[in-house]
């Protein structure tokens, strides 16, 4: 009896917190049929916003995947001065509000910032796509590392040592032993990183300058449409973002072998 009650409470909580808002967006999007949704999504400025989000994601995800794996290996397998510091710093983007990140980048690359001189050499960071990429890379940095580190710890290094005694070089050991053993942690980390990249708002809002048709990302576009009373447009873009997120999650759940819990 108590078990059923517990389950019921958990389910109600989940529905109220997670599913109800999603369902609401879904319902509101199609309130007036398909035509206005199509019109909103095929708007050139909306399409451009999606393209910016995609570009930023395609750059940030591989960068942070490589960084996450390398940092994970360094933290778990190596001893070096400053290791504790590195481990702590990886979590910084989780602790810091994205708005603060945006502001920090703004100060750093702004006219009087340390790297402010870059714009004199024709490299525009703020109010351009490099700024958006920097902001998104920053906020999505910890996810792969945070998934990989506990998996590497649990894995131990005996398999890697066995591969070495069998003649495998460091790269061969990584490629044939380590990477296949942590692949699900990497996949999960990539999914979370992607989700974070698609959804980032606060930091991007500050550094991008929200220039419509240039630096505006999909999430900024949602806000923009909403402010301009284009509710269908706002809902439609939100829905697309939500559908991508859910699709990625489902794809991951389906491809992940059942017995593997990593």
């Amino acid at each position: 009896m108590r078990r059923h009650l517990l389950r019921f409470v958990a389910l109600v909580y989940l529905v109220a917190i997670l599913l109800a808002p999603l369902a609401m967006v879904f319902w509101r999007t199609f309130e007036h049929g398909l035509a206005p949704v199509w019109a909103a999504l095929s708007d050139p400025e909306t399409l451009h916003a999606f393209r910016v989000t995609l570009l930023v994601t395609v750059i940030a995800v591989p960068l942070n995947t490589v960084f996450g794996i390398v940092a994970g290996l360094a933290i778990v397998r190596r001893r070096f001065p400053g290791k504790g510091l590195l481990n702590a710093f990886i979590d910084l983007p989780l602790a810091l509000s994205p708005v603060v990140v945006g502001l920090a980048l703004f100060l750093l690359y702004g006219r009087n910032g340390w790297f402010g001189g870059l714009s004199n050499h024709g490299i525009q960071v703020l109010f351009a796509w490099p700024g958006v990429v920097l902001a998104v890379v920053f906020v999505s940095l910890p996810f792969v590392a945070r998934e990989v580190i506990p998996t590497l710890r649990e894995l131990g290094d005996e398999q890697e040592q066995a591969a070495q005694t069998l003649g495998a070089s460091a790269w061969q050991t990584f490629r044939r032993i380590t990477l296949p053993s942590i692949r699900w942690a990497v996949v999960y980390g990539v999914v979370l990183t992607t989700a974070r990249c698609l959804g980032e708002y606060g930091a991007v809002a500050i550094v991008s300058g929200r220039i419509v048709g240039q630096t505006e990302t999909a999430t900024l576009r949602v806000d923009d449409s909403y402010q301009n009373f284009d509710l269908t447009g706002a809902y439609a873009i939100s829905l697309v973002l939500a559908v991508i997120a859910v699709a990625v999650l489902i794809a991951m759940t389906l491809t992940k072998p059942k017995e593997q819990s990593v």
Partner: protein
Amino acid sequence: MSIEIRNVTKRFGSFTAVDYVSLAVDTGSLTALLGPSGSGKSTLLRIVAGLETPDGGEVILSGEDATGLAPQKRNVGFVFQHYAAFKHMTVRDNVAFGLKIRKRPRQQIQARVDELLQLVGLQAFADRYPAQLSGGQRQRMALARALAPEPRVLLLDEPFGALDARVRAELRDWLRRLHEDVHVTTVFVTHDQEEAMELADRVAVLNQGRLEQVGATVELYDEPATEFVMRFVGDAHVLGGTLVRPHDIELRHLQGEGSVEVEVERITVLGADARVDLVDGNGSRLVARLRRDELDELDLERGEILWAQPGRERVFD
């Protein structure tokens, strides 16, 4: 191929794991590194494999200095206590790993893997994953994997330590026979003196990072060089202030020179032998081993007071 360890030292922080050890292992021999936990035996084995770097000393493989050589260049087969099976590969791929790394032709790999699976009796399990094997099967797979690239030396780190007693005994016999067939120079680490005695031609006894004695198993038992070896290899008891083997305790009804008064606690007949449990005046227990005819001659009873005398006593510096 021979192994020569010269004055090897390894420290972990302030702890000296291996303390100036020198040891020579002959080609084709089966040698045990025996010692309690923390004696440095595993560290020494890992130094030979190149998995640890010594702080001092040299490792010479086949007459060549291998001290600075990376593990992948040593051509050494290593078997871990917990198998270190590649979990994402089938048994066949596990065994083939070293050969694939060496880029051997496909057919040659196939033939060699089949041969080894046959040798370790895992032909029927070739397409299974390690998770689907028992501990003993996994360790046999690990052995086949280590042997596949035809290593110059086979090193085993507590290879039976994680297995239950029955499987351990089975694998022990099997390894002995394998060594007779394959004749690769083999060194294994164990804390079990019985395992060392049963398997090895020669045993090196380590204690607190130092080498106490190296020798044939009989030598260690009959002529222990130190008190530690005397106590660690075979049973030893204190009688009248000296160490003595159970079968060197002589029992008499009459007091003799240097004899100690003891009470008979228990008499156990084990076929042709007998075991007599004794208690001395201080309450410390010891065991004497006699032949049946000696026992019959003494005509002992429980609770009887006797005089025990070391037939052959040893004094260590």
